[in-house]
């Protein structure tokens, strides 16, 4: 019993707490139009951040000694944008060797040198939910980070205390990788359901076996524990609600299947990622309490996502589904505010509703709404300062603040903002388009050199 407790606490310490002391700052953002998201929009308002936390929001605040001041007159101050689905800043995306890899975690392979983090900051994004890819029915664990550009210890990127989350995936990706790729289950949508049910059932048996052992160990010092299984440890933590599921999904039928499975195993927390057919089953999603994290207007890039609509955000929102808009891309994340604005053209969401899609709503989906996602006293000092209203197509982000520290300033945005240079790298030629970091969710991990040189089975 002690042994298991030890395991769990070790996992918790590793996953939940940050050993590194993360620097915080003090700053007063003066005189801007403050879009709080949760408490209206305040003209000519100051935001005071002390020790990385929002200390005061109000008019004509005094400047405490030693606090630097940013003049935001004529500017718009909004909460730092949160990207609920991203694959930047990690060295691995998919462990595609098995249909269930709950035991792996992208948090183990953070890459604070990834320039995509800086680019995200340039678009006002202060936090990203870094996800395992969608090759597996049950993929790896994800990591919620803050964009503290320049800190090179991976621990310093972690958002300490953010709940653990895990990636699931339905449909064509897992059936293609494992069914078609390895001739293994799942080869069909039915197989996906089978893998889910089988794995949850194993986790239940695992929990029972350990509970039985712990009970027996009370009276029998020679009790023998069941085998330790890191994968089923994680699955058990999903069953107990300690890990939140974020599931790659497109079609209405398979989403309803997933809800059935979760209901049968008593799992409550689910955020559906992409969920392009969510508009068809919005009432059902609302009734279950499922959340949706979607693209604004991107679909038809493969068969299972042939059918969608740019009204998805509005329909889901109006039906009471907690909805966010994500990027899943190292490019799109730089203009998530434009993506949010599309929900006004398609569906007429209010400014607050539209901006909620990229701030407080993703924060709720990630279980961090008590910390970030709006401008409120006591929350983290994570802000983006735009020269125009962030829902305007003319808006350009000027400064991005994380924990009270300015990590992006358009005034000091030199050409080469990389943190590290490979001395053996060729000098890069000028390119207009790079597919780095683009849509890596679809990256199967099987496109390695092995494939390149050998075969693509």
């Amino acid at each position: 019993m002690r042994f298991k407790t030890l395991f769990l606490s070790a996992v918790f310490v590793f996953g939940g707490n940050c050993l590194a002391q993360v620097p915080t700052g003090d700053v007063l953002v003066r005189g801007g139009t403050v879009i709080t998201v949760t408490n209206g929009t305040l003209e000519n308002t100051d935001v005071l951040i002390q020790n990385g936390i929002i200390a005061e929001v109000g008019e004509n605040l005094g400047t405490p000694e030693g606090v630097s001041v940013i003049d935001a007159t004529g500017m718009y101050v909004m909460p730092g944008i949160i990207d609920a689905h991203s694959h930047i800043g990690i060295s691995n995306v998919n462990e595609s060797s098995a249909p269930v890899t709950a035991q792996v975690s992208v948090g183990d392979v953070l890459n604070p040198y990834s320039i995509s983090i800086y680019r995200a900051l340039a678009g006002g994004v202060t936090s990203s939910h870094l996800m395992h890819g969608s090759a597996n029915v049950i993929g790896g664990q994800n990591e919620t980070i803050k964009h503290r550009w320049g800190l090179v210890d991976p621990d310093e990127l972690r958002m300490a205390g953010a709940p653990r989350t895990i990636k699931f995936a339905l449909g064509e990706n897992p059936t293609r990788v494992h069914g078609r790729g390895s001739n293994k289950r799942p080869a069909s949508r039915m197989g996906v359901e089978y893998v889910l049910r089988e794995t949850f059932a194993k986790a239940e048996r695992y929990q029972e076996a350990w509970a039985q052992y712990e009970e027996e160990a009370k009276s029998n010092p020679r009790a023998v524990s069941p085998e330790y299984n890191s994968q089923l440890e994680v699955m058990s933590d999903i069953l107990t609600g300690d890990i939140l599921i974020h599931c790659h999904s497109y079609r209405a039928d398979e989403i309803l299947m997933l809800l059935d499975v979760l209901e049968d195993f008593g799992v409550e927390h689910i955020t559906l990622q992409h969920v392009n057919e969510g508009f068809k089953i919005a009432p059902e999603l609302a009734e279950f309490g499922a959340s949706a994290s979607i693209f604004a207007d991107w679909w038809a890039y493969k068969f299972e996502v042939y059918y969608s609509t740019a009204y998805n955000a509005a329909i889901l929102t109006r039906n009471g589904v907690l909805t966010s808009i994500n990027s899943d891309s190292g490019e799109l994340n730089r203009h998530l505010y434009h993506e949010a604005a599309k929900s006004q053209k398609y569906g007429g969401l209010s400014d607050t509703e539209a901006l909620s899609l990229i701030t407080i709503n993703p924060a709720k989906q990630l279980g961090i709404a008590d910390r970030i996602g709006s401008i409120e006293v006591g929350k983290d000092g994570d802000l983006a300062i735009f020269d125009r209203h962030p829902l305007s197509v003319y808006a350009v982000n000027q400064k991005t603040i994380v924990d009270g520290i300015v990590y992006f300033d358009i005034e000091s945005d030199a050409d080469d903002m990389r943190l590290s240079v490979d001395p053996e790298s060729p000098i890069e030629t000028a390119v207009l388009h790079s597919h780095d970091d683009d849509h890596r969710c679809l990256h199967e991990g099987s496109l390695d050199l092995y494939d390149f040189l050998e075969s693509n089975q």
Partner: protein
Amino acid sequence: MRIHRRVITAVLSCAILLGTSVRAQVNNGESIPDVTRTIALTNARVVQAPGQVQERTNVIIRDGLITTIAPDAAIPFDALEIPADSFIVYAGFIDGLSHTGIPEPKEQPNRERPDDPAFPPPEQAGIQPQQDVRSLLDPEDKRITAMREAGFTAAHVVPRGRMLPGVGAIILLAGENANEMVYRGDTALYAQLAGARRMYPGTDMAVIAKLRQLYREAARRQKVEQLYAENPAGLERPQYDPVLYAMFPVLDGDRPVFFNTESVLDLHRVLAVQQELGFPMVLTGLTQSFDAIDKLKLANLPLLLTLELPKEPEDSEEEQSPDFTEVALTDAAVELPQIEAPDYDADFRVSSLVDVAAEKENLEARREIAYKAHVGNAHMLESEGLTFGFSSGSVKPGELLGNVRKMIKEGLSEDAALAALTTTPAQILGLTSSMGTVEEGKLGNLVVTKGSIFDEKGEIRYVFVDGRKYEIEPPRKSSGGDPDADVNPAGTWSLTISTPDGDIGGTLTIEGSADSWSGSLTVEIQPGAVPVEYIVLSGNELTFSFDAPGVGTVESSLILDSESLSGSFDVPGLGVATVSGTRTSDPEMSNQHHN
């Protein structure tokens, strides 16, 4: 009387050998027995340990051991005397970690894909902590001689492989057979963040997860074993598992893990999992560790720094790719003067494509700074008070000393360099009582040089291993290609790429003429061609790179003649593949093809 005659004969033949055929005795390693196992180096400058020098001293080696170090030490009657007035004697170097003595397998075993890539047999997935390097040693491995010629007398060697290749041993870099080479076995478990190919664990994150699983289940299993050993009555018999059982000495703290890191990201990841699980560890590799100094200080672990250095960047006009020139030309409506200053401007800003030359120059300056940081890594560690030994890893033995000298040029002190080659690896490997310094009673492992070992002109003349003398010929520079050759690479070439997994066919097409080469590469089975970039022809050496999806940039270097080529593809993370090829169409035909 008879004995006396024998001695005289021995001394005489010794003198003859000294005059004529010492090298023959050294190099063929065959049947001529050592005439004497007593050697006297006389009047030498002896660097006993870093910073501890004895001038004009005699060093006597007998039966494999250093017996006497004294200025006036009598030269034993049976000694082979080497006048060393102009030589410097150092302790033999100790390689902290490498695969010396373990030849690279010609064919990768376990080539076939497992039935279920989710659950491959452990050895197929590179998980073999039970493997003992002593069973893999090959005294014929060419690296042994090459390492010895670079001054190394002992090495900590570990099996090749992926995540957990096995258990290491200390070997002496001399010996007729494997047993003779082994100084001590069971040194450490070797580990690296190297995933299996297309099976679990395939990625770094899966290797880390697998390590947690192995370690924790091994810990549980060990407790069950203890229960069973105390009293088996009423307990289900625990099943033997070679992988888990090989972890027990690690759990007990008796067998450290030598964990290799190839980047600062590796370093953070390895430290994190080590701190989480708590196994005893020696951190090796340490490339880029200049970016994690504070964390290294906190971790307070024994360190082995690789002697691998990046290639020195070349800032030159020729290096420009055709693409680059094109872009520059298209936009060069206004010719801007070339900027001379090589200094890096961190705040450099120019609108896209306006002044490509200046931008490129600035990027080159930054790359130069990065290169110096890598070479200066050793100095950085030293100046921050971090002690480290050197390991040769997979560096070519002929480059090792040169790399140490480069590090010294970037600030590393000679004493720290010598310590990293001798005393520190001896400490880390638990060898201080027998190796690492020139002291009476220690093994006769010595390096004898003309000039300081750290001087560009310094030359190794003798290496003694276990008291055996090896005379070293001054190094000759080997040249890859012929810079004066005149060949035309244009045309189509049929390639055979030899990988550890077998041969792969391919086709290389080169077009254009000098200064504007372009080309493409196709590989059999894989549809489509990839563009070949940064093509440079220097004499008969053709270098280029291409992007392999998901792997990165593969660097290629090929030596051509009119009809054939040979060379290598350097694949990041996977190693070097040998390439050979023949011409299938000549420049004219390839041009016609395109007209």
